[in-house]
């Protein structure tokens, strides 16, 4: 057995060698000078590595001289009509210089070049004062290659994408830092791309090849979280600060006066606070009162930001602000009540994982309140946050709790949240005409509560029915009532369902979960590239009682079942029994991790498949 290994290895290295060789020969022509296009490249009908691609970037070269300019050169191959959209280019800068572009086609065996018509390059003023360049390449057909290059003086510190929605065959990024800023350049840690990095003097070169397209998958918070890119993180402010570590970063942020002042106690809300708190002495109750008050009165304008742009007083008066401003007001008010409270720096999921001590590492602020000796985290701004839970957008690794008085900081874990519970209790009856009807109560806790609460908020009552996403032909839901309580949101409704029961000969058949059953496996893709994000841990329980029609009794029931994910990361339990002319079913689905790595995909897919089949199993009734 073991003896075979060396041979096997040899075989592998031969393949690797061959592959590399073939790449360097076929796919990387010696130089990518502008206009150096070969007939062979134009003839290609599909890419060898990405045969499904409608278009590929043959070559992308970016050279950024930080603070000065950025040069971009791209060559794109269009394989078919679906790839035509890649011939339309948007450059998000207004100062595009040295723009060159051309389309190359093979016509009767010879290369025909059509230059980009400068009159057809449009400057679109997206918002007054913000201009972008837009154009499309002429004479595009299946097989065309397009090429463009330009320079811009803007955006030298912007993220540099290493991955597109089409594959990139070869990319080379050079970043030269001649400025007096220190920077740290890191790759998006959530992306898996392997790159070559080389630092020579002041220039960093990053190169990679055969980068697949970023393909959308379900159960992902946002696909852009996984895009490969380089972020350029300044680790100093014009020479005066150097963020060698998190301590100096925190120190620098605290020295910014708008930050420092935002959380200090003020006097102008004294009256409101007194009315609000009254004689309440309990700290948690006080926090809750202030939380609820601000939650009710404040509107979030959608911005995050770690530095407030308006004074706390303005936020208070305008009843509107960024996440940092609204949470800053909350911190300030609690401080006034002598509650131990401090700001917590957080990076939202889209801002990336905070790995480098740089100004962009964090992009928003929430409140850390010490209650019974423990730090509890609060956000007022987002609709997806409540007194117990933070918006899933904020559940990103860890944040920094800044002790403003002591000028110290410590890390706080952001992902440690409770299990959200959903209970569905249904009482159903099958009548003599084999129509099913009944009442359902949904008790939503945790994030289920937040979701339902937001869905019904400001919605007319007769529209409540539309938030119950049971897509089941023949089902009618009515009398939907909602009760929003402190502990959660309850929904109650009645239903009638036709065509849910089969009567064949003298037997009656039905799948006892009716519309509450899983109808489709959400995991249809054969392969998974990215983690499966359920957003939060949850436990979903359905308890159903079905009264049988007069004159029938149970002939057979499905078998009770329990399926478990490895390492007890989740489970599905199906219990069924009969008593006194009624069938009772309880199903419990539990997912104990919010995020599963992509290599668990097959197991999760199978888990849902088995669950779906089980939920379709039939109860058989016979006459007696």
């Amino acid at each position: 057995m073991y003896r075979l290994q060396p041979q096997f290895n040899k075989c592998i290295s031969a393949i690797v060698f061959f592959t590399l060789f073939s790449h360097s020969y076929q796919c990387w022509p010696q130089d990518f000078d502008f206009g150096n296009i070969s007939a062979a490249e134009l003839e290609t009908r599909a890419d060898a590595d990405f045969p499904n691609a409608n278009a590929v970037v043959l070559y992308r070269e970016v050279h950024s001289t930080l603070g000065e300019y950025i040069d971009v050169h791209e060559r794109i191959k269009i394989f078919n009509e679906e790839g035509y959209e890649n011939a339309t280019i948007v450059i998000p800068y207004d100062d595009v210089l040295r723009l060159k572009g051309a389309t190359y086609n093979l016509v009767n065996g010879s290369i025909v070049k059509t230059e980009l018509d400068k009159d057809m390059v449009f400057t679109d003023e997206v918002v007054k004062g913000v201009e972008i360049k837009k154009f499309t390449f002429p004479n595009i057909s299946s097989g065309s290659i397009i090429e463009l290059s330009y320079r811009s003086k803007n955006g030298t510190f912007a993220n540099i994408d290493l991955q597109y929605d089409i594959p990139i065959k070869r990319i080379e990024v050079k970043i030269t830092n001649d400025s007096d800023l220190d920077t740290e350049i890191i790759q998006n840690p959530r992306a898996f791309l392997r790159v070559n990095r080389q630092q020579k003097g002041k220039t960093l070169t990053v190169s990679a090849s055969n980068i697949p397209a970023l393909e959308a998958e379900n159960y992902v918070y946002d696909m852009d979280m996984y895009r490969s890119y380089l972020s350029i993180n300044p680790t100093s402010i014009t020479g005066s600060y150097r963020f060698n570590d998190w301590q100096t970063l925190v120190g620098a942020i605290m020295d910014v006066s708008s930050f420092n002042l935002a959380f200090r106690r003020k006097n102008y809300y004294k009256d409101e606070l007194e009315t609000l708190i009254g004689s309440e002495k309990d700290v948690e109750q006080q926090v809750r009162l202030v939380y609820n008050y601000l939650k009710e009165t404040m509107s979030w304008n959608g911005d995050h930001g770690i530095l407030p742009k308006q004074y706390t007083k303005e936020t208070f008066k305008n009843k509107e602000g960024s996440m940092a401003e609204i949470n800053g007001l909350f911190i300030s008010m609690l401080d006034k009540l002598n509650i131990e409270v401090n700001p917590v720096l957080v990076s939202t999921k889209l801002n990336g994982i905070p790995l480098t001590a740089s100004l962009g590492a964090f992009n928003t602020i929430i409140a850390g309140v010490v209650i019974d000796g423990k730090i509890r985290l609060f956000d007022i701004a987002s609709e997806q946050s409540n007194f117990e839970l933070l918006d899933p957008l904020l559940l990103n690794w860890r944040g920094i709790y800044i002790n403003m008085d002591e000028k110290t900081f410590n890390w706080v874990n952001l992902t440690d949240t409770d299990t959200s519970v959903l209970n569905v209790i249904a009482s159903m009856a099958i009548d003599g005409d084999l129509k099913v009807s009944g009442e359902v109560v949904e008790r939503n806790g945790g994030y289920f509560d937040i979701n339902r609460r937001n869905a019904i908020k400001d919605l007319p009552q007769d529209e409540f029915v539309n938030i119950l996403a049971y897509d089941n032909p023949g089902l009618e839901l009515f009398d939907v009532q909602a009760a929003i309580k402190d502990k959660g949101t309850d929904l109650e409704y009645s239903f009638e369902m036709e065509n849910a029961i089969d009567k064949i000969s003298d037997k009656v058949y039905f799948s006892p979960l009716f519309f509450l059953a899983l109808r489709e496996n959400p995991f249809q893709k054969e392969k998974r590239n990215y983690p499966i994000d359920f957003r939060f841990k949850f436990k979903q329980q359905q308890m159903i009682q079905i009264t049988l029609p007069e004159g029938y009794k149970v002939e057979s029931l499905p078998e009770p079942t329990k399926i478990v994910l490895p390492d007890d990361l989740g489970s599905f339990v199906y219990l069924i029994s009969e008593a006194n002319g009624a069938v009772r079913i309880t199903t419990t689905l539990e997912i104990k991790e919010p995020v599963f790595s992509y290599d668990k995909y097959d197991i999760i897919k199978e888990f849902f498949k088995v669950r779906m089949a089980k939920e379709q199993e039939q109860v058989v009734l016979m006459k007696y």
Partner: protein
Amino acid sequence: MVRLFLLLSVCYTTLLTAQNDYSVANIPEDLLDNANAVIRYESMFVEFDAINSMTLKGKKVVTVFNKKGLGAVSHSVGYDESSSVKDIGAIVYDSQGKEIKKYKKRDFTDLSATGSSLYTDNRVMTIDHTIASYPFTFEFFFELDSSSTVLFPAWDPSPIYRVSTQYSVYTLENPRRIPITVRKFNLDEFGVRMEESPARHFYEIRNLKAIDREHLSPDYTEFTPVVKLAPTQFELAGKRGNVTNWRDFGIWQKSTLLSGRDKLPKETIRKVTELVQHIEDPKEKARIIYNYMQEKTRYISVQVGIGGWQPSTASEVDRLGYGDCKGLTNYTQALLKSQGIESLYTIVDAGEDGKDIDEEFVALQGNHVILTVPFEDETVFLECTSQQLPFNFIGTHTDDRNVILITDEGGVLTRTHVYSPDDNIKHLTAELKMDASFGIAGDLQIESGGLVYGERFSLEQQSSDDIKLIYKSIWGHLNDLKLSDINFNNDKREVRFRENMRIETDNYVSKAGSRILVNPNIFKRIEDIPTIETDRTQPFEIRRGSTQRDTIRLQLPENYKLESLFDPIEISNEFGSYKATVVHSEDNQLLYVRELRLNSGRFPKDRYNDYVKFIKTLLRNDRSKIVLVPG
């Protein structure tokens, strides 16, 4: 001048008095019924001062009760190079009618309204207001000067469902007494007060109740008050027009916007001539030319100034290899003309729900352009913006509606191609086998034609991964569906699309103790069931029909035998017909045949619930199962 000044002051007096009380309590009871929002006050004042000058002064005050009512709020105004926003602002009131926020012109955001085009000169000024709580009242006003006068804003006091209107007024001042084309819908029915004179058009309505959307209802102009207005003399992006009938309209379009834009480079004419040189039949020539155009060009929309109305020249499209609908249509027309084939530039309201060009309203209408080619035996319609559509196939985008042809003799109305239920076919055949663990596997073929072809042929363009995902989502009820050997045959000449594949699923049946339930209707699931409507007020319209046939052979597992089948089912009525049969043969094979025909047509409102029942009956019968037992 004096007269105009007086009118303006009267108008503003009305505004001021109306402004007094926007409290929710002040809304008449019956306007709250069924309303997500109430338009408290709406006025549009159009001053048509000269052929090349008009000013619009608009104001709209809306009380919004919930987020479904937000659609009734106006908060932005569009403009382009021929117009400018003189004034714009908004005031927000709380439920008591107390002012809580005021936006001035400088608070508005000025955005590009390019949308999906590559570039347009359209812009929009808009305000982004964060809503603190409901109900609130939003007042919006603007003033816009325009040198383009081709169309006035329409008066449409009940623009969306479940919004009531307390007061709406429209005034067109026309001091130069330029004749106006007016089209009025349902004004008497709703007690609209109106005054029409050569110098002034005035319409006013009070207390218009909210109405509910009814499924499949006809166009809203059939049952709500609407006035459309246009001048007979106008200016459009610097071009003058004088149009009182369709003949004039066509001649104006042709002479002002279209003529002289059909010159092609000699080289292109030579190429096209070469392509068709051995072909006699003009329709065959047209087919080849259409194909040439499709391969050479693609759709890219650029609308700047007059370019929003006038096609780019044929030579420019030839040089760039792209154009918008006007440019590509004009280009195709030029290519056909170079070979002696006459064709007609055709204006249409595109989209699956597109409307007829209203013959009674001679004015700029429609949003798209196609090409009409009359031949001896038939008239062919060409969609020039697609690289894939077959010759003479326009699909649901522009089928079955009135359009205007721009001929040498002016504008002529005609109707585009109608696809009947017999044209729109979908035939599915499958040869399948069920294994011992109740998975099924086998070969499947789907053939489609007519509008069904239009729905499916683009599958061919998808990547193989996406194709699989599309099938998996269509047949989501098939557990763990696996697909292989997928291939397509796209017969553009006959307009037939064939899909062949091999499928394999896990457990297809429902287990019921020792019995097995099998639904032989494996691939069809009716998903959209309309609901019963009481007190329906409008007739209903089914715009397109189809004919479907499924033939499925299913070999059952050896160790199971049939316990029961269902009897043949046959249903037929004005909405369509349905037939399903299942036969069991001696070799333990099922043959299931399902035939469904859905008719198109317009039906009276009292038949609606019968239609719902018909669809529900189909659903029930589609679920018919057979029972197998071990043995």
